[in-house]
């Protein structure tokens, strides 16, 4: 594991709501979660970022008590998930990747059903149902079959069902996959609202723009936590040196040419341009231009830019992959 400054377990100030220590989950010979340690504080939006199969869902399922950890400890809302999953379940809301409400029940019936399971009754239930309907924008559609709702509505209804009992911690496993951009934005507004009310929101995603909304991010790769910190910290810390943007008329010739230069640590294609990581922009500028001219690639633009989260992501996963060959 790299010892970057980001690699620390810093929940910072405030009440700790989820604490994970050396968590390991193995399925046979396959290690899905490999010694992961972190903690979150109350009212935080905590993002889980990583490629598919990196162990995001497995970790969330362990925290919800759906899977048993092979070793290590996870404490959610003050209760150990392995020894007291029931106490944990009373205090969390969970929304899985797959839309998992009953398609053959109506909106209201689904809400009542989950309310019943969470033990929300009477006036409080109708108040919460009202809240959920308003939140999801489903007033007037209470009696529609859930199957007839479109993706964004279904997803907001699922969130409504998951938080009917006002849990202090909410786990959302890729909640926005397969939803249109507008609905995604609305959904994130809801998440921010909940966080302001003091709810800890645990959300996994592979959208970079969504990751920007999180207070803190944990970057997972092949079951390992390779970086942890606020998006801004990650962006700064991930790229060692300066990041330069290069626009050219021939990406292919350009990338071959600059990769041969000792000053260029890394070169990657971003859209129709190249992002180059160099030790120092001032020292690298001239050699790069020379090499490109030799390779008959015209420079349209070459300048220092601030790294984006995606740059950080690429850099971190690349260095993690280099540090440890594929098993």
């Amino acid at each position, binding site marked *: 594991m790299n010892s970057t400054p980001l690699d620390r377990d810093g929940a910072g100030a405030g009440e700790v709501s989820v604490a994970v220590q050396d968590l390991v989950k193995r399925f046979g010979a396959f290690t899905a979660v490999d010694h992961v340690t972190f903690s979150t504080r109350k009212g935080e939006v905590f993002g889980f970022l990583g490629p598919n199969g990196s162990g995001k869902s497995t970790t969330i*399922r362990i925290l*919800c*008590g*759906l*899977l*048993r950890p092979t070793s290590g400890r996870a404490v959610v809302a003050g209760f150990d998930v392995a020894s007291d*999953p*029931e106490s944990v*379940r*009373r205090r*969390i*809301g*969970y*929304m*899985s990747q*797959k*839309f*998992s*409400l*009953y*398609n*053959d*029940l109506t909106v209201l*019936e689904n809400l*009542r*059903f*989950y*309310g*019943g*399971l*969470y*033990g929300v*009754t009477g006036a409080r239930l109708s108040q919460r149902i009202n809240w959920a309907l308003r939140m999801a924008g489903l007033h007037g559609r209470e009696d529609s079959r859930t199957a007839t709702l479109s993706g964004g509505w279904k997803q907001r209804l699922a969130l409504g*069902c*998951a938080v009917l009992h006002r849990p202090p911690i909410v786990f959302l496993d890729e909640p926005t996959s397969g939803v249109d951009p507008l609905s995604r934005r609305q959904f994130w507004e809801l998440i921010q609202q909940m966080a302001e009310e003091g709810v800890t929101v645990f959300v996994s995603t592979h959208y970079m723009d969504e990751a920007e909304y999180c207070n803190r991010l944990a970057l997972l790769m092949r079951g390992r936590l390779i970086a942890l910190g606020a998006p801004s910290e990650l962006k700064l810390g991930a790229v060692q040196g300066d990041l330069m943007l290069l626009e050219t008329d021939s990406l292919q010739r350009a990338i071959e040419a600059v990769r041969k230069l000792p000053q260029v640590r890394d070169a990657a294609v971003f859209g129709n341009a190249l992002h180059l990581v160099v030790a120092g922009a001032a020292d690298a500028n001239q050699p790069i231009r020379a090499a490109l001219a030799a390779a008959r690639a015209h420079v349209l633009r070459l300048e220092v830019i601030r790294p984006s989260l995606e740059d950080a992501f690429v850099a971190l996963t690349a260095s993690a992959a280099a540090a440890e060959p594929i098993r």
Partner: protein
Amino acid sequence: MFGRIWQFVIKEFIQVWRDPRARFSLIVPPIIQVIIFGYAANFDVHNVPTAILDLDHSMESRELIARFAASGYFRVDDVLASRARIGQLIDRGRVALAIQILPGFAEDMRKRDDASVQVILDGTDSNTALIALGYVNQIAQQYQQDYRRDYLNRIAPLAARSAPQVMLEQRPWYNNNLEDRLFFVPGTLGSVMMVMVMTLTAFAIVREREIGTLEQIMVTPIRPLEFIVGKTIPYLIIALFELAVISVVGVLWFEVPMRGSALILVAGSLLFICGVLGVGLLISTVSNTQQQAMVVSFFFIQPAITLSGFGFPISSMPAALQWLTYLDPLRYYLVVLRGTFLKGIGMDRLWPQFAGMAAFAVVTLAVAAARFRKTLE
């Protein structure tokens, strides 16, 4: 706790009721099954297709043949002229037996020698053959006795009057007319109930697992027992409704008598349904896919029917299989069904069956609740 169970019950009912196909399949197929299978499942032997070859052409042979034809057990389709035809007819399965009277039959009878009637049976259906052979024997026996009495009357009327004779008085209890239907209709009720309840519940949990809703339920604070009870109650009510529907068909359509107490019938049915529900839910909790659930439940249904005494007597099974029948809830339930419908017996005789079903239900439901883990592993 009750609130959670209650929500579950409501939800299951809405789901069943809202699906028109499910609504249909709860009512129509059971009725059709009971009617068709009530008729199909029986071992009655009447009007067995029979060929007759009379090579004696005597008064005696014609008298004997008339008795066969009049008995109602045999339907004489073909009166043959040659022996060669018998082989053809039996080979093709056109007749199940052939009765052949050889030349000299009447003469043997008159001479008070041993006379004989020959019967050729198609043994393929061994049960029909065996019972038909019994009838042939009865008719021949009766004919011989009558013939002898006539003969004695003619030559020695005094001796005839004082001939000792042992007669058999048959007392077939519970089913005076020896109708197979009365035996099979309660058995069909039990089997149809089992198939319905099994197929409904075997899917109950695994379907939610496949759709993904089970994962959502697992993270709620519901307890495994609450979950199992919540899944049980709706199907229990549906099954009782089924029982009412098919019992009405049995009593009104097949005119099965209802000699016992309806209360005992309902109580026994409740225990039986709980046991079957337990098996169904157990299968559903351990299956990963609906296909697995279906295959496994078939593996339960099939032996359960075969070993229940539904149509095949338990007493003629090998000892090992007879022991196995004690694990079959349908075995007990059929005794209760036949006991209340046909025999009209009460709890003083049926309690062992109740005990057997209760033990089965408790064990299966408990194991189902214990096996239902709120984890994905």
